[in-house]
């Protein structure tokens, strides 16, 4: 089956005072209909910028450039004009953002913010849109939706606001939802509830989801496949099971080791990957993870490792697998 989204050689660069920031650097992947893809990486690895690039939300110009292909349906979104993208955004592709506390407009009622997106994309009367807004709030688990639909964002907790954001995202029945760390800003118990809601909606609605997160724990049991991102590049691709059972890239191994586990025998401090993720400006040749890698070899600092394919949609960029994988 033809994938619903194909991203090919996506590059997003920002010109800044300290140099060119390669926030997304040659990223390619695809997504099938109804599939849930996890994009995992540390803070600053370019996940949000990638999502914004797909949505065409970046102010492209003198200091911001996006190149590559984003094939959605039969169209290459990268070539499309802003006017065309406005019809796609919110209707065909919806995005849920990282911080629900600041992502809703504090000056407008929830009803206004839900109705406006439906009125923009669907042929629907104001009253019908409002009725549907109440239904959506019901569906996403906002209590007393009828009474509360006209409240303002500050009258809701963070978890409730994220549910409202989700209601907004699904309001026009998009075929793709990009959820950018939808639970990062929330308390742990609320995180679980919001993930549960996404689970439920995933089964009810026939949408594909890109779940961006820095928490591999969120990925398990939700995503079909996972791509690990490091300094603007996808360094490993795997199905969720494969990734947890047999991580290949040292960075993925580190991420897995740093998930807190209830069954862990070792009490005490959690593992953390040593060092800091690199600034995405004037990266040195070689593997960007090399300075933090415990398996570092001489070739790692010389050039970026080529792709090593293990099977279909299972590959890694790491010198450790340079020779034996491609047989």
């Amino acid at each position, binding site marked *: 089956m033809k994938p619903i989204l194909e991203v090919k050689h996506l590059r997003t660069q920002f010109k800044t005072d300290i140099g060119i920031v390669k926030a997304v650097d040659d990223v390619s992947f695809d997504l099938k209909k109804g599939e849930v893809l996890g994009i995992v990486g540390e803070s600053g690895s370019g996940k949000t910028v990638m999502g914004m690039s797909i*949505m065409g*939300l970046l102010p492209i110009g003198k200091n911001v450039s996006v190149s590559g292909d984003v094939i959605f349906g039969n169209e290459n979104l990268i070539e499309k004009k802003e006017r065309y*993208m*406005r*019809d*796609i*955004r*919110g*209707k065909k592709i*919806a*995005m849920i*953002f990282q*911080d629900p506390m*600041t*992502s*809703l*407009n*504090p*000056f*407008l*009622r929830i009803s206004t913010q839900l109705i*406006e*997106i439906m009125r*923009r*994309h669907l042929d629907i009367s104001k009253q019908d849109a409002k009725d549907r807004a109440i239904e959506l709030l019901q569906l996403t688990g906002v209590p007393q939706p009828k009474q509360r639909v006209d409240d*303002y964002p*500050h009258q809701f907790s963070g978890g409730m606001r994220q549910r409202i*954001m989700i209601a*907004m995202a699904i309001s026009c029945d998009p075929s793709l939802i990009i959820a950018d760390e939808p639970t990062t800003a929330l308390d742990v118990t609320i995180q679980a509830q919001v993930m549960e809601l996404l689970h439920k909606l995933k089964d009810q609605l026939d949408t594909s989801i890109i779940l961006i997160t820095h928490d591999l724990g969120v990925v398990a049991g939700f995503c079909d496949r996972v791509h690990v991102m490091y300094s603007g590049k996808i360094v490993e691709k795997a199905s969720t099971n494969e990734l947890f059972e047999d991580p290949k890239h040292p960075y993925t191994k580190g991420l897995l080791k740093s998930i807190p586990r209830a069954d862990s025998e070792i009490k005490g401090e959690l593992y953390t990957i040593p060092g800091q993720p690199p600034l995405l400006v004037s990266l040195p040749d070689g593997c960007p993870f090399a300075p933090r890698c415990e398996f570092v070899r001489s070739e790692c600092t010389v050039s970026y490792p080529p792709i090593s394919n293990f099977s279909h949609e299972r590959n890694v960029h790491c010198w450790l697998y340079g020779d034996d994988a491609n047989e």
Partner: protein
Amino acid sequence: MSGYVIRRILGTIPTLFIIVTICFFFIRLAPGGPFDREKAIPENILRNIEEKYNLDEPIVVQYARYVYSLLRGDLGPSFRYADRSVSEYLFRSLPNSMLLASLAMGIALMIGISSGVIAGYKRNTLYDYSFMLFAVFGVSVPSFVIGPLFMYFFSLQWGLLPTSGWLSGRAGVLTLVLPVISLALYYVATMARLSRASTIEVLQSDYIRTANAKGLSPSYILTKHVLKGALLPIASYFGPTFAAMLTGSVVIETIFRVPGIGVFFVQSAFNRDYTMIMGTVIIYSTVLIVMNLLVDIIYGILDPRISYS
């Protein structure tokens, strides 16, 4: 809301009383008195004058006398101008200053905000650069330069507008044009700069990113999502600024000979005209208090997170 407004208005009474009290005694502490400069006055006549104005009584008695007349709405006689009372002078000139200020403020709000918001929205375009250049000019050129310049070109050189003559003669309302524009220029410029900055800030906020991610049109986003947030900083600037403008703009009023209240603020202090000083202080405080209340009400209307009850 209305309960809140009533409570706030009642709350101003003690504030005003404290201001009046402090002011009354402070003025008397300043060296010199209202009749000092008339050197030639013989001792006995001076004593007569002082007796007439009750200046010979103990200061506490004078204070009680002043508060008593104040409660009946009387600001007392001027020590300087014998023919009319302080109330007559001030309330005759205040409307002129208020008209001048309101027209200038109206222009500042309309032109300043709209051009500032557009400049912020079209940031770093030719429109933005040229308008902000004008704004720098408007902020940095003082009114005592602008006023005479305008007068020179528009009245003397081109004969388009009258130089002065507030609302009188055949020119009528045309006499308003030059003083209003000269006064407004600075405020147009500051309002434009303020609203440009706040528009840029709002445009970078997460909720505008959300609005864009919903595919809403730019004009809808600007009017519905950006404007309210961008207006908030303007509201807090508006209050005290308009209070200062309403109570007279001495420079503009002097240049264009507007019979406004501004001159009394300056002259009364020089003349040690105690009652006139008190009158101007009371008027300014009242206007300022009312403006602050107005700002709070505007905030309550703009920002749903603020509720008065």
